[in-house]
């Protein structure tokens, strides 16, 4: 892994610079009719840059850029691509969605300007967190991601949204402060090996000397890092902010929070786990991750049944799925890590698709209460089927990708951690019953509402679902290859 020439890293610069430029531009443009289009175009350009970067990495292998401050390897390149992709589709979805919100009088032009600008900045912080090689910058980016989304969550300025944003800010702020302490400890351990000024925060260097790092310090550091970033992943019992923030923010924000931010936070945890695995002889990090993962899966599954708000329902489902992924990484080994990565991908795609569908549904019916939404198929077949298919996909029905990854995780768990399988199976069963029984009447129930004349913009929903379906049936060989390489890295 060598420092690459300037010509080869231009894509990294583009991937990071485009959202910042977009944010500035959108802040300057203010709220004109063209703003949502600019937002979508910038997101598309970012996607193009990410695609180019991906091609580079596919051809040339992992690369380090800008004095080793940026690293793109098989593990994060597919997350970069995924982030850029979902970022783009969400911006496409938000174009009509936010316009209708404005027409309904829930938003003012000034707030839409804030929304567009912050949306791009949020994408930037996530991409920065993914591509940086510096554990310190990773922290800074994660904190910045919190800051940019706080104002997005409270965009409607309703009492409930303010409360959700406050909770989000304080909980994640405290959590991320713990992560900073963990980072300090990590730096402390690394500095003893690498010496001062030896780039002791660079992940590649840390990884190279991970066997020499002081185990006690690293164990403590990992606890802090896991709790810190875990707050953002939404591990039970640190998940309190998550359902509120998802339910009270605008739907595009819920989609990117669930589909992307949780992934990025989990990515941070896994990067740290790799270091700790190398330094500690036992399975300390793995056990912790399995514990947190399993707890999240079980608790979230049982809380699903109590939800009455559709967005909260799917927020809890996100906690559950993040728990599954964390558990998979905790089990470790090539198959479980492979499945974890696959699950991360399909969950992002499916969950954002579901939020798009839910967004349209709530916008049309004017409520988020599950009992008040009935007969979506009658009102608009596209939304109804979109939601139904998305729900089936997220619940792990074959032939969708979620089934494939969950199946892999379960079979690995049966072989390597048999004690955990009953918990997982029960949780999945409970989750299926809870979610399906709530969504089914929403889609097919009796309704008195008339058919809506407007055709919803369902292209992003079906694109995502098609991709998930494809991943369930056939994983492209280069993608499988990445997953395998990344899984080897994660261990």
């Amino acid at each position, binding site marked *: 892994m060598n420092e690459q020439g300037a010509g080869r890293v231009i894509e990294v610069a583009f991937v990071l610079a485009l959202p910042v430029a977009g944010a500035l531009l959108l802040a300057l443009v203010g709220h004109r009719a063209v703003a949502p289009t600019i937002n979508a175009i910038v997101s598309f350009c970012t996607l193009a840059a990410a695609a180019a970067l991906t091609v580079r990495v596919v051809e040339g292998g992992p690369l380090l850029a800008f004095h080793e401050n940026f690293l793109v390897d098989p593990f994060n390149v597919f997350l970069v691509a995924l982030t850029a992709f979902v970022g783009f589709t969400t911006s496409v979805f938000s174009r009509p969605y936010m316009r209708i919100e404005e027409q309904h009088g829930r938003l003012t032009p000034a707030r839409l300007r804030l929304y567009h600008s912050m949306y791009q900045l949020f994408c930037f912080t996530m991409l920065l967190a993914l591509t940086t090689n510096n554990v310190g910058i990773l922290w800074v980016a994660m904190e910045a991601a919190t800051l940019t989304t706080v104002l997005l969550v*409270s965009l409607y300025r309703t009492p409930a949204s303010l409360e959700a944003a406050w909770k989000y800010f*304080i909980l994640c702020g405290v959590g991320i402060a713990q992560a900073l302490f963990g980072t300090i400890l990590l730096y402390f351990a690394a500095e003893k090996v690498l010496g001062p000024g030896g780039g002791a925060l660079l992940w590649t260097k840390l990884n190279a000397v991970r066997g020499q790092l002081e185990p006690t310090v690293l164990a403590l550091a990992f606890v802090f890092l896991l709790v810190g970033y875990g707050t953002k992943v939404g591990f039970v019992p640190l998940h309190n902010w998550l359902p509120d923030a998802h339910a009270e923010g605008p739907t595009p924000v819920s989609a990117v929070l669930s589909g992307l931010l949780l992934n990025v936070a989990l990515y941070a945890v896994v990067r740290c786990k790799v270091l700790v695995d190398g330094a500690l002889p036992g399975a300390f990090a793995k056990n912790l991750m399995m514990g947190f993962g399993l707890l999240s899966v079980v608790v979230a599954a049982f809380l699903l049944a109590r939800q009455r708000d559709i967005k909260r329902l799917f927020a809890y489902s996100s906690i559950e799925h993040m728990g599954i992924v964390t558990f998979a990484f905790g089990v470790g080994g090539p198959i479980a890590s492979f499945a974890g990565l696959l699950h991360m991908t399909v969950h992002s795609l499916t969950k954002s698709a579901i939020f798009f569908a839910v967004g349209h549904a709530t916008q049309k019916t004017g409520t988020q209460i599950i009992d008040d939404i009935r007969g979506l198929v009658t009102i608009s077949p596209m939304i109804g089927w979109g939601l139904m298919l998305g729900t089936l996909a997220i619940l792990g029905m074959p032939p969708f990708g979620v089934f494939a990854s969950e199946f892999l995780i379960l079979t690995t768990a049966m072989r390597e951690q048999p004690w955990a399988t009953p918990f997982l199976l029960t949780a999945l069963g409970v989750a299926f019953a809870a979610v399906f029984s709530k969504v089914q009447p929403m889609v097919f129930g009796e309704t008195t509402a008339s058919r809506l004349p407007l055709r919803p913009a369902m292209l992003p929903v079906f694109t995502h679902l098609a991709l998930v379906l494809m991943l369930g049936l056939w994983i492209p060989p280069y993608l499988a290859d990445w997953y395998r390489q990344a899984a080897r890295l994660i261990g």
Partner: protein
Amino acid sequence: MQALPLSSQLINLFASVLLLLAFAMLAQRRVVSLIGLFATQGLVLSLSTAVVAWSTSQPHLYESAGLTLLLKVIVLPWLLYRLVRKLDVRWEFEGLINIPTTMLIGIVLVVFSFNLALPISQLASTVTRSTLGIAMASVMLSFLMMITRRKAIPQVIGFLAMENGLFFAATSATYGMPMVVELGIALDVLVGMLILGVFFFQIREQFDSLDLKHLEKLKEGE
């Protein structure tokens, strides 16, 4: 008994004062005094960083001391003070738990953090290693302050004080983080504070008060 070199003595003194300040913040009822304590904490932090820089001749620590001075002694307290004046919140407030009990919990936390820090500081080679326990204790105490306070501004001061404690931990364990990271952290804190400022006004506009009991409507399963 062997006396330590002057710089270590000064660092120890500053560390002890930081611990004392953390307790003072825990006990302080008035918001304006709380801001004053926070500014003092920043000042002590900056002084101690400067002393570390001087005794180990590490120029980049002077920069971070200067950054602390600018951000945590001047800018943030000033912002907070303006905010308090604009929002007109000078009331005395009651915490969730009464103050003597909070203090006792605080002492338990200090003992806990000292024990937690002991193995790490034994590994450290810095002149400041023994103060790591105090740094950890300050973090814990600020955390406690955030938990026990019901009003928005004291919670935020607790949050900022926690950041101070972390900064002190970084200085005492490793002579500070690399400059890029430190700048990033400072930027995050500043932006966070600005966002919170906006946020306070939104909360006030919505509830006519900064009491967080209004922000307890969202519960599980509703």
